[in-house]
């Protein structure tokens, strides 16, 4: 519909500079510049390198998005920006730019929560989200289970990782196996030729004593250590390390815990929709296992296409679009970047 609001979204919370433009639920543009190659040699995202790259990429990425959507900044009705959580210095570049655009074009500004944006992006692919829903967000930066009562207002954290993020575990195991960075896609590929039952790696926080305090929390640090021990023991004995089997068995341990807890969260809360987002949502085994287990309980699994699962501007625009439609008040120009922004606020009130 042409009279639905045209909303621009800016994302710079980690190593992706993303600018997205949506009209209502329709994605018009999703331009992305990534500094991932600059971080590869460090084996992880370097905040200062990411911040420098954001500043360089912002203007050209914005131009690509505007060209792709065939609109100008004057046509935009509102500007949304990730104001947290994320890397402080990286967030600051996006927030400063969003303020510059909003100020110059005299448009309302919405500082939004990155995690809520990961959930909102699904509406671009599958339409309005049935509420309540459970969202599982898994990436190099987050591993969270959320109860979504109202995407524009109420999101309740059910659980999160108590140590490493799921994607971080993929990165560390990939490095351990000498496979490169980022680890997620590489392990997914390597695991295809392996036996996921070859090695029984531990499932963190699934023992009854852990479930009492951490029913919907995750822990991947012990798993990472177990993989390291297993590999080092093999090397000490002079045996070749079966890379494919280790990859497949590690991946199975991660996906088993994630999907088991996500389905349990849906059942406990009487929810029939599970949304999965974040970079790890692109993992092929996670998708299959989630579908299998959800089907048994009549739960619908919604996973956006991989480009929308990783960090991007479209997800921020999608959430901004929902906020505008719901009549939520915009943020003020002194909007802070909040690296530890909690989910109690989906957007920063004016």
């Amino acid at each position, binding site marked *: 519909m042409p009279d639905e609001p045209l909303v621009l979204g800016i994302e710079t919370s980690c190593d992706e500079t993303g600018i997205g433009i949506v009209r209502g639920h329709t994605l018009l543009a999703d331009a992305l510049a990534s500094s991932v190659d600059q971080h590869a040699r460090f084996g992880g995202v370097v905040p200062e390198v990411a911040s420098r790259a954001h500043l360089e990429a912002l203007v050209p990425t914005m131009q690509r998005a505007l060209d792709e959507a065939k609109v100008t*900044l004057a046509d935009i009705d509102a500007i949304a920006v990730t104001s947290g959580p994320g890397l402080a210095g990286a967030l600051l570049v996006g927030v*400063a730019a969003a303020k510059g655009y909003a100020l110059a074009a005299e448009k309302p500004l919405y500082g939004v929560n990155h995690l809520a944006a990961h959930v909102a992006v699904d509406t671009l692919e599958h339409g309005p989200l049935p509420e309540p829903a459970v969202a599982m967000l898994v990436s190099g930066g987050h591993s969270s289970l959320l109860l979504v009562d109202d995407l524009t207002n109420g999101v309740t954290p059910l659980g999160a990782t108590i140590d490493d993020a799921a994607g971080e575990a993929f990165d560390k195991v990939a490095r351990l196996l000498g496979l490169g960075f980022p680890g997620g896609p590489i392990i997914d590929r390597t695991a295809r030729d392996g036996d996921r039952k070859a090695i029984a790696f531990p499932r963190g926080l699934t023992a009854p004593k852990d479930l009492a305090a951490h029913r919907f929390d995750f822990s991947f640090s012990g798993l990472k250590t177990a993989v390291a021990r297993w590999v080092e023991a093999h090397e000490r004995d002079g045996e070749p390390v079966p890379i494919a089997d280790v990859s497949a068995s590690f991946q199975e341990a991660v996906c088993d815990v994630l999907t088991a807890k996500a389905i349990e969260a849906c059942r406990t809360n009487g929810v029939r929709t599970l949304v999965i987002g974040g970079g790890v949502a692109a993992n092929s085994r996670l998708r299959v296992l989630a579908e299998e287990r959800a089907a048994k309980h009549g739960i619908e699994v919604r996973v956006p296409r991989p480009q929308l699962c990783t960090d991007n501007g479209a997800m921020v625009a999608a959430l901004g679009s929902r906020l505008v439609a719901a009549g939520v008040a915009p943020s003020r120009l002194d909007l802070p970047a909040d690296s530890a922004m909690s989910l109690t606020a989906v957007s920063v009130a004016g």
Partner: protein
Amino acid sequence: MLVLALDTATPSSTAALVEVTPDGLRGVAERRTVDPRAHGEKLAPEIEGTLAEAGVRPSELGAIVAGLGPGPFTGLRVGLATAASMGQALGIPTYGVCSLDGLGRAAGPGRVLVATDARRREVYFATYLDGVRLLGPDVTRPADVAAAIVRAGTATRSRARNSAATDAAALAESETLEAATALAGADAARVAAALARAEAAALIGQATFRDGGVDLTGREPVQRDPAGLSSVHGLVDRAVGEGALKYGDVFGVPVEEHLLYPPGAALVALAADRIRAAAPSEVLTPLYLRRPDAVEPVGRKPVLT
């Protein structure tokens, strides 16, 4: 033409509105918040306040001038991201100037040290003669600034010795002059004259250096204060910038406390030639001077430890 100037290279989030006419500048409004951790929150409201105070809509702006630093990176990027995004939204050119030059320009005649706080017990610094930069920008410990000025004198001296021609015409062809002219935004003849003075000064300095004193301008060979090796006394007349104030004891020269942060009008003055000539818009790249701290892992990092 109405020009917006922004600077976040120091603890100040500065926004200024300056009118540039064919033959002059007129400051219209200027606002600042001094807080080293608040650029991200304070700059945009200061811009909005400056425009409101002058009754100017953003669409009436003709150009944006931004201080490129050097300065602490996080705050610096706030100013440049804001300037670049506003320039893009308004379809107007953006011009970058060295933030220290803003202070050097505003300091007026004489030999001036500009020093701003680089954190980690270091300063960003540059030296100026009559508002034109001679040395820097660079970053070092306050106690090492004097030695850097002396070293620069030595370098200039050997260049002069190897050069058959030390007149302004020869200097006009040098890369130094081109760079200095571009950065200072001043006319070539003025910079050439300043550089020629510096060269001459360095030659005079050869003699005085042996006695522990070097004068960059050749006005008067002076004895360095033997008690304070870190003092820049004798090398410059005075210092400006909040770094100069913070490390006043180290530098040992008078600090002008009214010039702690780059004034908006001085920043616009540095870009006035480009603004009047409607020069092409510039990509605003920070003067980083320091590399990221990240270290590449060596070999395979053991997970168990």
